[in-house]
């Protein structure tokens, strides 16, 4: 089941990549997608049980909008910090707790924090994230989580678990 989904995904990407419509392209796409599925299909991080639940996609689209808003805000904040004289920064490191278990969710949370305003992921362990913050507001873990990632973690927990 998992490998079938990987095959369909790879074939779709092949068609997008070559974007031609003759017979040879279809045959070569099917052969190469089959080859990669046999080579690496088991290791691909995918959640086959969650694939056909529409609710998760809707929540994920909501997550994308929240993330887009955060990213644009991040860029304007960063532009202000870059352009003002004597950059108004006070860098430091804070810890927040990490409750997600699925690897894909952890990956997306870490990358979203890297693109969120003023923060990026410095290190990741089992249950904590170590975050470099360019203007440290607080050092308390709970408040820091509220200020840095807002409700991103709970949304991702709904999507991937």
């Amino acid at each position, binding site marked *: 089941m998992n490998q079938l989904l990987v095959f369909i995904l790879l074939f779709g990407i092949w068609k997008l990549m070559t974007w031609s419509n003759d017979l040879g392209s279809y045959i070569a796409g099917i052969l190469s997608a089959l080859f990669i599925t046999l080579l690496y299909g088991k290791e691909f991080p995918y959640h086959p049980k969650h694939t056909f639940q529409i609710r998760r996609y809707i929540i994920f689209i909501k997550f994308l909008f929240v993330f887009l808003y955060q990213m644009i805000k991040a860029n304007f904040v960063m532009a202000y*910090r870059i352009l003002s004289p004597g950059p108004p920064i*006070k*860098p*430091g490191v*804070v810890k927040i707790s990490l409750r997600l278990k699925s690897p894909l969710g952890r990956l997306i949370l870490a990358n979203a924090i890297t*693109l969120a305003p003023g923060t*990026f*992921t*410095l290190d990741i362990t089992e249950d904590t994230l170590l975050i*470099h913050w360019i203007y440290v507001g607080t050092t308390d873990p709970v408040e820091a989580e509220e200020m840095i990632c807002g409700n991103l973690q709970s949304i991702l927990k709904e999507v991937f678990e």
Partner: protein
Amino acid sequence: MIDLLFYVLMSIGLCFVFLGCVGLLRMPDVYCRLQASTKCVTLGTGSILLAALAKTGFSAIGMKALISLVFLFLNSPTSAHALAKAADISGIKFWEKPGDEKIYPAKPRPTVDSDIE
């Protein structure tokens, strides 16, 4: 309409790329440079790729722009994370504004020598 969208996205992207490079020059230490440049340059490049997608529509150029957009948004934060972790391990100190109090206790860092026999 499409032309207007194209020009707006392109100018936004170029402005942010330029800001990211200015941040690369102005920030005081490695971590702040990485923050400024990664965020601004990633959003700028994404905006320019979206402009290419809007200009050409469903064609080979647009689809390849879409693929490299997904690829860039997956990879650019990851390489920034790897660089920051490597700089932390190799023992580069955080910059502090002179006169500020220490905010955090420095975490124990393994030095480079401990990994090498």
